[in-house]
């Protein structure tokens, strides 16, 4: 029992450390790629290639004045950033980072835990994280923030449906909600039997777009929409609370990349993982990195949706496509078996 507890504690500490580093560097990555796409250099002064930039930004933001607007609803204003960050961090306890490796004479599975309803747990945390944004918008007592909060909640309700329905195809394929089982079901073809190649290209497309919307990334970044709403829901935030919003957002981004990888791109599967289990960790990291890159690439390529377009797209295009995907997958499964 104590052994298991110790193992969990160490795993959580390692994942938390790695994740927060990844979050800090994905901000830098985003700014560097933005520079590259817009034909300029991006931050390159602090350290080699600007690698110390996250530390410098962090220090700067910590020393900023922490402002709470006098008309704000104080309690909600203070806890709103936490409500965004904590659920997105909690998603990572079920994501399998790799297969089992042997360390210090002990078999260690490379995920914190797994349970029967793992995927529902991920969806649940994803849907709860909207409270942070909505309440930040409301508590700031600022009309732009309120608009941002309203948009976030409407967008989340609409795209959650498409997100939830798009994974049903994967569930039909793997027959389990447990993320570890879902990854194992994609193990054939020398580790290349990934859902996205086999039967779920449409499901993946819908999931990917809906996940972009859930993570509030361009072209669905209506809740913060700089050009219309100043900075949307976090207009009034400064200092560490602002940092927590930023961290929450990038954490959501990495979570979206991790879940897409796990569900559709074979998780840690790849050629040669059976013989070299440590390779699985590298595959997983590489896939997540590619996803994060694509998310950033999309941000600087596509313009933002208008609000009515966003709603129409979610309800009239994504939702029917997700249902179509379920029908096709179920029919094929029935005919094959």
């Amino acid at each position, binding site marked *: 029992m104590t052994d298991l507890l110790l193992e969990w504690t160490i795993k959580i500490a390692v994942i938390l450390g790695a994740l927060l580093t990844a979050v800090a560097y994905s901000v830098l990555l985003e700014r560097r790629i933005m520079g590259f796409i817009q034909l300029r250099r991006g931050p390159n002064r602090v350290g080699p290639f600007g690698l110390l930039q996250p530390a410098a930004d962090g220090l700067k933001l910590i020393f900023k004045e922490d402002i709470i607007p006098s008309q704000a609803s104080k309690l*909600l204003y203070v806890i709103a950033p936490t409500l965004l960050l904590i659920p997105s961090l909690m998603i990572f306890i079920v994501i399998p980072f790799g297969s089992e490796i042997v360390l210090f004479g002990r078999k260690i599975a490379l995920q914190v835990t797994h*349970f*029967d*309803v793992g995927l*529902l*747990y991920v*969806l*649940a*945390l*994803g*849907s*709860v994280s*909207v*409270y942070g944004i*909505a*309440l930040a*918008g*409301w508590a700031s007592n600022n009309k732009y923030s*309120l608009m941002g*909060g*309203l948009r976030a*909640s*409407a967008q*989340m*309700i609409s795209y*959650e449906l498409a997100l*939830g329905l798009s994974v049903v195809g994967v569930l039909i394929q793997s027959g*389990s*909600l447990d993320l570890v089982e879902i990854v194992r079901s994609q193990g054939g073809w020398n580790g290349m039997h990934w859902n996205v190649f086999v039967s779920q290209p449409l499901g993946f497309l819908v999931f990917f777009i809906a996940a972009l919307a859930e993570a509030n990334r361009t072209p669905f970044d209506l809740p913060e929409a700089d050009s219309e709403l100043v900075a949307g829901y976090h207009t009034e935030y400064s200092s560490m609370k602002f940092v927590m919003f930023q961290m929450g957002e990038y954490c959501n981004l990495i979570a979206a990349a991790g879940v897409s990888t796990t569900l559709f791109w074979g998780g840690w599967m790849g050629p040669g993982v059976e013989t070299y289990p440590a390779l699985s960790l590298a595959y997983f990291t590489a896939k997540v990195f590619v996803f994060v890159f694509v998310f950033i690439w999309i941000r600087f390529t596509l313009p933002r949706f208008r609000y009515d377009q966003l709603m129409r797209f979610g309800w009239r295009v994504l939702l029917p496509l997700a249902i179509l995907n379920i029908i096709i997958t179920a029919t094929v499964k029935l005919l094959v078996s």
Partner: protein
Amino acid sequence: MEKALFIIFAVVSVAAALNILLQRNPLYSALSLVGTLIALSALYVMLRAQFIAAIQIVVYAGAIMVLFVFVIMLLNAPKEAPYIEKHKALRFLAIPFAGLLIAEAFYVIRLVKPIQMPASDDSAQAVGTTLSVGTKLFTDYLLPFEVTSVLILMAIVGAMVLARRGED
């Protein structure tokens, strides 16, 4: 250990439920209800109903309550009047009736036979897992399930008709 967890979540759920009544601002009431829902979901996990616990968060906390919060923010509803204007007598009736209701409930509960919870069963067929819920739902309970889908269709049509602005 288990009893301590039960007491923690029970206290959280009851405190949040009381807070629904104490707050004058509907948004705070709604958030208190979210607190109750999450505490209840933890209790469902303790009862080994993982599927229901997850659904509780996805459907209740993640969809229904977000809809409530959305409507409250959209209407930007004014705070409630500090006291009941019309039916003042109701308040004095409500408290004794509440006492009566709870006394009744506890009188009945006292008669409950102490049953032991079945020993924990780790197989996928155990009560509360996704497999067992799904199997039951699509065999023995297929008709209620289908009727629910008709109900949801009616709700969708009804909500659209009601929320649409009039033609006039």
